[in-house]
């Protein structure tokens, strides 16, 4: 009853203790190691790193373990940890053209310099439950090939040679890139902030938005120009040394959507692009991000803004799952003070309603005999 709400410190302690037990599960079964999670649930780990915006497989694996596999909770844990970390500076932009590519596909060209490289993928598998996997049966070693030194230019660079696709806008040297973890978001937001927001955005939310554009809510006619996955070098410009030093490698998926564009008064018809970049091999998110990025560029490209995916304020204000889950779940907190105020009002209004009804009925019974009054003149029928 009432006291259950007034939980008190002891109740909270005990609840958390019980949760820890539930998390551990059957104690006769070995507990999950972080190596197992990071190694075998790599895509979950990548998602948590991306939406948590912290590239650390160990911490992400710990977060997933601590969250009992609740990935949004894990993202939250990682974010809360991330805020406390000191910031030394910003890395140089990664060069995805120089990626050590593990997978690279293009839906727009049959073949292209560097070739198509299928790599590890669920694509073209039959989605049949694999019972051998349940038994952890023997696994064939993967085939390997000679590493060729062919360059693998990005598809968008191939197209832009012909002027068929818009140039990557080169920001001015002095242009500051916004940082939405350090400054409050304000609208209208530049593309830099939009991409940051989408990169941290919830995979499910972006997927649904991207899907909605395909179904006609703000069509953008996308083609998957290129999706590539692999390792890129992260470099940091060290003031003391005067040059950039490598910090290490991270795995990313990059998606460039190529979209039809009819041209405008100033610009000839050409293809435009949407861009997606995520940690790890989270292709669905990278593709969704690229499609939503393109949709959000509607104003810049002179397109009419009609659909949710084109609405910057709508998308950016609702993409963050840590914010969303917090506010939805805060409804679990006690609200009885406000509810009391509403209760009081509804009781009073009900009382007045019944009084009015009674008065109307009394008036009606008095009026009997003077003939029906008829409905008052309604104009709606004109």
């Amino acid at each position, binding site marked *: 009853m009432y006291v259950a709400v007034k939980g008190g410190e002891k109740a909270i302690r005990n609840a958390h203790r019980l949760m820890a037990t539930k998390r551990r599960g059957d104690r006769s079964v070995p507990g999950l190691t972080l190596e197992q999670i990071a190694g075998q649930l790599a895509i979950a780990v990548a998602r948590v790193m991306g939406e948590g915006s912290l590239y650390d497989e160990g911490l992400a694996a710990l977060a997933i373990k601590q969250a009992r596999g609740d990935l949004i909770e894990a993202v939250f844990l990682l974010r809360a940890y991330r805020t406390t970390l000191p910031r030394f500076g910003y890395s140089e932009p990664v060069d995805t053209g120089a990626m050590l590519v593990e997978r690279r596909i293009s839906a727009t060209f049959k073949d292209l310099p560097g070739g198509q490289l299928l790599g590890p993928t669920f694509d073209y598998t039959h989605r049949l439950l694999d019972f051998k996997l349940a038994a952890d049966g023997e696994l064939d070693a993967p085939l390997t090939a000679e590493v060729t030194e062919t360059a693998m230019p990005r598809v968008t660079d191939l197209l832009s040679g012909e002027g068929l696709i818009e140039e990557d806008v080169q920001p001015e040297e002095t242009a500051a890139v916004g940082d939405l973890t350090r400054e409050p978001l304000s609208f209208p937001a530049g593309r830099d902030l939009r991409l940051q927001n989408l990169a941290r955005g919830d995979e499910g939310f972006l997927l649904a938005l991207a899907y909605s554009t395909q179904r006609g809510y703000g069509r953008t006619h996308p083609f998957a120009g290129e999706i590539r996955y692999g390792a890129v070098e992260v470099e940091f410009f060290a003031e003391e040394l005067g040059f950039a030093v490598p910090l290490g490698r991270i795995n990313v998926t990059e998606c460039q959507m190529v979209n039809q564009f009819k041209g405008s008064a100033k610009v000839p018809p050409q293809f435009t692009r949407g861009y997606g970049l995520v940690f790890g091999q989270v292709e669905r998110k990278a593709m969704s991000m690229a499609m939503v990025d393109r949709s959000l560029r509607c104003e810049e490209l002179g397109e009419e803004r009609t659909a949710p995916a084109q609405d910057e304020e709508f998308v950016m204000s609702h993409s963050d799952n840590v914010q969303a889950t917090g506010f939805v779940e805060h409804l679990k907190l006690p609200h009885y003070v406000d509810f009391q105020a509403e209760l009081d009002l509804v009781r009073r209004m009900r009382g007045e309603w019944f009084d009015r009804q009674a008065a109307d009925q009394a008036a009606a019974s008095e009026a009997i005999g003077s003939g029906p009054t008829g409905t008052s003149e309604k104009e709606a029928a*004109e």
Partner: protein
Amino acid sequence: MTDFLSEEPLLRASGVTRFYGDRIGCRDVSFELWPGEVLAIVGESGSGKTTLLNCLATRLAPTAGAIEYRMRDGAMRDLFQLTEAERRFLMRTDWGFVHQNAADGLRMTVSAGANVGERLMAVGNRHYGNIRGTALDWLERVEIDGTRIDDDPRAFSGGMRQRLQIARNLVTGPRLVFMDEPTGGLDVSVQARLLDLLRGLVADLGLSVVIVTHDLAVARLLSHRMIVMRNGEVIETGLTDQVLDDPQAPYTQLLVSSILQV
């Protein structure tokens, strides 16, 4: 009440030009609007009349040219030199804008009374009874039954919505009202009633009006003077009766001959 000042125009457009990219919206339009005068801008769709109206009402910035308005203090001010605060204040007190589609000019989810009362509250009226009284009064003037005051406009017919929109605009006693095809999309009988109402209100209140219409009959019935537009440019101007009875430009002759004479 503005008679002593009527030696001066209320609104003056000089060389108003608006491009959309390299496409012309309207080009080099100049005219003066006098207090109490109703000016019709007529033309086919695409003639630039709505572009011109939107420039005049500061809903669209002209590419070139100037639009001046005589403020209540008598000073002539360039509308695009006003601060946004001044402009918005002007729009909700001294001006009205009647949209073709009433839903664009009304709050469809709040009651008719609140729709009429909003401008009063915006300028600081804080007496519920007075606001409601004024709203009732205005509903009556535009021939909407007072019992509908708490209904929202979604429950209203097209003609009622249009009349509600007019009441909502006139409640602050504006001096200038812009109208964009106010009778468009209504049945003929409803149109006639609305025009009749508008003519009465304009005369009673001494309003100045700029009305855009493709319908020469509407221009004939309401306006004193008219501007004929084609391809973004003014073809002919003059007193309404003169232009309609003795059109000079070949295009105007064509327009006039293509409709039934009223």
